[in-house]
């Protein structure tokens, strides 16, 4: 049996959960096996019938389980796995899913493969997976020797498809929770003021690197962005660790992953840890004075030259075009 740990938010399954259910269904077909799911929350039972084609859905409903309560969720999942004896356990490879399954893996003392993108089957059984390394810059094929195989699915590795088939049977699962299972829990959520267009929503991102040379020079990029449709300014790690920009502007493996229509990389060398954060951009335009910079192997359009001359000239040209 393939057991899916489902993530919900605001009484709905998350997109990553649907991706995970789709991956589980496909894997179950290949293994001629069945799929079941675990749903935990303060009021989630109504969601169970929407998981069509699954054999059954185990539900744990408790008013104390509103939101993600890490240790309680891990205890419930570990007990459910011990009871149901699946061969594969799959959760979304989101922050919550990775946290949840790592805790489950620790409790059961089993290995866990996070960020999976592909599955390998041998003699009708799951043998191993492909998983992301270096934030997605490399992929690793690995065998998993323990059972059940605990996996999280890399977000967007599989496109979510609607599930078809009969409604699953719904089972209430009884798990005794103690105070200590709630020692890690959200105390407060401080909502953020929304200021401007965020990096992840922007249609155009103008990113600056070491070539900018100062916080001051980023004003130039701000001005360029203000002339473009739906644009925001991003940065490399060199720019954030020099305090030219806040870390929230950082694009890359340890920063934000962006996917705009256009990424304009200015004075950025194109290090893989940076590029893994912008590789999903539809187009990449690079401005760099070094024709051998790695960015030119990872861009669609290139301009070779000094950014301190090119960017002001480009701003003037765009203003001229807009004025006309």
């Amino acid at each position, binding site marked *: 049996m393939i057991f899916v740990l489902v993530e919900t938010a605001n009484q709905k399954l998350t997109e990553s959960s649907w991706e995970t259910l789709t991956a589980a269904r496909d894997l179950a077909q290949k293994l001629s096996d069945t799929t079941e799911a675990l749903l935990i929350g303060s009021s989630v039972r109504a969601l169970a019938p929407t998981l069509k084609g699954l054999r059954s859905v185990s539900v744990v409903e408790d008013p104390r389980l509103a939101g993600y309560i890490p240790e309680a969720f891990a205890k419930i999942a570990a007990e459910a796995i011990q009871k149901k004896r699946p061969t594969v356990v799959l959760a979304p490879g989101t922050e919550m899913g990775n946290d949840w399954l790592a805790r489950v893996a620790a409790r059961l003392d089993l290995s866990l493969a996070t960020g999976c993108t592909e599955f390998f089957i041998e003699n009708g059984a799951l043998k191993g997976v492909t998983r992301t390394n270096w934030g997605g810059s490399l992929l690793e094929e690995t065998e998993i020797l323990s059972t059940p195989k605990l996996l999280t699915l890399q977000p967007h590795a599989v496109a979510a498809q609607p599930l078809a088939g009969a409604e699953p049977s719904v089972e209430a699962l009884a798990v005794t929770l103690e105070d200590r299972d709630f020692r890690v829990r959200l105390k407060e*959520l401080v909502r953020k003021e929304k200021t401007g267009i965020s990096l992840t929503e922007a249609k155009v991102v103008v990113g600056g690197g070491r070539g900018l040379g100062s916080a001051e020079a980023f004003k130039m990029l701000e001005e360029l962005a203000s002339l473009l449709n739906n644009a925001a300014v991003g940065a490399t790690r060199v720019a954030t660790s020099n305090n030219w920009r806040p870390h929230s502007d950082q694009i890359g493996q340890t920063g934000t992953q962006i996917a705009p229509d256009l990424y304009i990389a200015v004075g950025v060398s194109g290090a893989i840890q940076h590029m893994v954060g912008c590789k999903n951009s539809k187009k990449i335009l690079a401005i760099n004075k070094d024709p051998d910079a790695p960015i030119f192997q990872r861009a669609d359009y290139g301009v070779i030259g000094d950014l301190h001359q090119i960017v002001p000239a480009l701003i003037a040209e765009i203003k001229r075009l807009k004025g006309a």
Partner: protein
Amino acid sequence: MKVLVCIKRVPDTGGGFRLTADNKRVDTTNLGFAISPHEECAVEEAIRIIEKHGGSSTVLTLGPMAAQEQLREALAKGINSAILLEADDYESWDARAVAHAIAETVKPMGFDLLLFGNESADVCNYQVGLRVAHLLDVPCVSGIKALEIQNGKAIAKRESSEGWEVYEVSLPAVFTVKEGINVPRHPSLRGIMAAKKIPIEQKKPIRQNLQMARKLLKKPQEGRQLEILGQGVEAVGKVAAKLRELGAI
């Protein structure tokens, strides 16, 4: 207050990856080594907490003798002592084995606060810190970007799309840290000299049976065709036209 911070030596790969002939490892022949930015921030956070609250900080890595380089860097910045769990084959250890070895070493040492990176730079397992917390039976909050210690409690914040999630747990506790929690300092010359004199405690860790076995590494497809729009300021006419074509203006 006793603080532990765990770091991992990884190749600093820069512009691109070269793989070894058997496609199992990153070819590190011409590469320097680093630790993940998350872990650099964990080191910085450990130093700041000791500066503020007093006590001592320890850095630990499981890796080859050469990983002393990363330990010395942490000592140079202000960490007080270092432990090397020496394992030349550390790249083949799975996260479970790493966590068992770390937990076994640190359990008798009585740390109040244990800091990890949210994920290691190379294998991105997202789990060693959470596993160590379980083995020590202490609470853990992962992926934090703010930390404060008050009266035996830790207040940690995670950043989500909705805002700042605030957690409060009592110590001892484990936290896994994300870059952005602070801006790490550079070591001073004095710090570098002083670090050379600090002895590094070396131990041979016990490795549990591995449950994961890497077969190969591969590069994902990258398919872009470069078109050079021009050189210098002469190019701006063509760039602006391209921006218009792409709907940016």
